[in-house]
């Protein structure tokens, strides 16, 4: 058992526990985007950063990947952490504003504006779809290609995959696709409608006739009314 201190509270955890798991066990809230229980942690979104250490050596690390160490001092909401989270959320809103998951997170941490050039991307490269396909569906149909600005997710050489079973798991875990809209009044809807459904690699025509797996959504209600 490893004993560490989180926000002043001592906790003992088993070896191999991550700081995120330990903090959530104690009830401290830490936002995540690319973390999902059941999939291996990746550390891409950087939202889960916490401050460890003391004095000038203190640094921020992603809590989802950092293993608990004996005697570690962890702070999940220091000013440095909050500043970082707000900037990361600004960057997320600047890239993918139509995602309700990101909107909710921004609202929760009181980020109401972003100061960058607005982009409308449909992928934040969190890698959840890749890990879902590899670890839970055992298909390994999609992966990361290239680096930096050109980094993308797709099948090898963009060739139609013969191991993809069209399970839709990749779409299900995608934060950019998640639109669990709960508004019943169409005028108050803030989501982008099902225009957000853009799975990384699977041909879209096959999904046209499939049922939207989400709960009845306002966009569908509006469409129905108009028909």
């Amino acid at each position, binding site marked *: 058992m490893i004993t560490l201190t989180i926000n002043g509270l001592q906790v003992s955890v088993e070896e191999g526990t991550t700081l995120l798991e330990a903090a959530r066990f104690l009830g401290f809230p830490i936002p995540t985007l690319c973390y999902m229980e059941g999939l291996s942690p990746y550390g891409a979104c*950087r939202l889960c950063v916490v401050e460890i250490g003391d004095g000038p050596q203190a640094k921020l690390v992603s809590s989802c990947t950092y293993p608990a160490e004996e005697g570690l001092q962890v702070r999940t909401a220091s000013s440095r952490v909050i500043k970082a989270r707000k*900037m990361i959320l600004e960057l997320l809103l600047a890239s993918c504003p139509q995602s309700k998951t990101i909107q909710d997170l921004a609202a929760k941490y009181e980020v109401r504006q972003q100061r*960058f*050039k607005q982009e409308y991307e449909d992928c934040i*490269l969190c890698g959840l779809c890749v890990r879902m396909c590899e670890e839970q569906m055992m298909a390994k149909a999609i992966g*990361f290609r290239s*680096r930096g*600005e050109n980094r993308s997710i797709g099948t090898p050489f963009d060739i139609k995959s013969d191991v993809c079973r069209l399970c839709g798991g990749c779409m299900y875990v995608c934060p950019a696709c998640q639109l669990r809209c709960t508004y019943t009044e169409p005028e108050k809807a803030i989501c982008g409608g099902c225009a957000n459904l853009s799975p990384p690699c699977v041909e879209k025509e096959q999904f046209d006739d499939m049922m939207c797996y989400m709960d009845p959504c306002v966009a569908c209600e509006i469409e129905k009314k108009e028909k």
Partner: protein
Amino acid sequence: MEKLTSTNNFNSLCDIITTSQEKPPTIVISAGTCGQASGANDLIRVAKREILSKKLSEKICLRITGCHGFCEMEPSVLIEPSRIFYPKVTPEDMAKVVESVKTGDVLEELLFVDSETGTRYEKQDDIPFFKKQVRTILAKNEKIDPIRIYNYIENGGYRSLVDTLEQGEPSRVITEIKDSGLRGRGGAGFPTGIKWDLLANQKNGSGKYLVCNADEGDPGAYMDRSVLEGNPHSIIEGMLIGAYATGATQGVIYVRKEYPLAIKHFIIALRQARELGFLGTNILDTGFSFDIDIVKGAGAFVCGEETALIHSIEGKMGEPRQRPPFPIQKGIQGKPTAINNVETWANIPVIIGDGAKKFKKVGVRNNAGTKIFSLVGKVKYTGLVEVPMGISIKEIVYDIGGGPSGKKNIKAVQTGGPSGGCIPTELFDTPISYDSLAKVGSIMGSGGMIVMDESTCMVDVAKYFTNFLKDESCGKCFTCRKGNQRLFEILDDFTHGRGEKEQLDLLEGLAHVIKDTTMCGLGQTAPNPVLSTLRYFRDEYKTHIDKKQCPAGVCKDLIHYRINDNCKGCGLCIKACPQNAISGKKKEKHVIDEDNCIKCGACISVCKFDAVSVT
């Protein structure tokens, strides 16, 4: 070559190779990549032709080496033992040089002349560029032909390894390296002795790895290239000593693909070392086994980062991973791995041969030894310089580099490559050491030193390095990938006159968050060019934003080309302008149409009267 099967064999070989006979005068031609690019191959051809046709093979030796460091004066020729130095030799003059060696004359008209003082220098060691250097590593490049292992042995090569094997105490080697205070020359400056101690303490189990990081991705840095091309055996010897000390079983050298000559020389060196018996199983009958594989990079700067390098060696995408666990605990294929830089390895035989005490005499406290810097940019004498730690920046730039190359004053120096920072002239008294450079907001890095003068725009510099890092980021961490893109966007706005006051604070805030939240060294140091230029040159940023002007005259959208009163109306610029933007009658002051002017600079280069002003 017959394989050596014992340390006694080696001693006998040394006796045979090192003759006490006086060697005839030697013509040394530096033919590293820089030398060959400047025309050294022609000089070699002429030299060989002259020596053979005039039947001088018994009287004159020819030695072809790697880079000596005075790259501004390539292709250069050095005469041993007189140490006469001829810079920028042409093939036509080469025949004269060969003749002069035969007669023992000095060709005065071909000697190096200091353009400022007019002094003519005969011997290389008197030239100011060389005088303040302490050439522990680079001097060997002058003495050794990299593709001749006997040449290396003749100059004391492999002696440190054999002595180590004869003593038979691996822990003693680690103590010696620890005592020397050698710190990693790749940039982070981690004490090498401690790293080896940690590796030695790992359980042996299924093997341990030693890696030589020869990726050298920094633009403008080529120190490691000169050691790889000019003295590959020093790396092999260093790694063998390291393997013996730490119990490593396999070595890997990760070379960037863009160094074909280094790869070629290393392949030859490995082959010769194996033939002689220095690599393989049961080396010199001591029971010690070790061999080195070459793995080539594929053009990714991020693969210089140690965990990304390990992934690349394993055949995976060059993506860093979280540490802990550190490579010492879990490296290549999960086995304990120690990664060191080329220059660190090159220092190992020196420390074991001369002793830790002698090594520590050079340098300053906590920063022992020398460091090779690539001195480039707006300085008169560019090249590779090896200086003792503790020397001031001023001495390097002015005494060794010769001061500014143009008419403008020097403004700043960028150290540490794209991960480093800019240091303004006011701080040039700062001594070169890991700690003092970090204090002023830069880093030692792998040793790049770019000199900038008043015609360099610091906002443009920040933009250049941010662009580089944005392209080279692996893209995993959201803040590194998107953050660097956004940094570049804002800097791009500044340089095109679209900057707004609020963006300056946004730039700084974003830079700090990127530094804090990214996982690997690339992301953590990526904002350094921005942060250091903001720290020392904030006024330049403000001028770009508030006045929409570029004081250095670089950012094309913010400068104006205007013809001043020096114009004699000769019409040369009208003919030169690709946009037909200049008009004017003969002998009358010409005028540039600013709407069509693309600021290409053609008019400036043809004007003999300095009549084009850039404001």
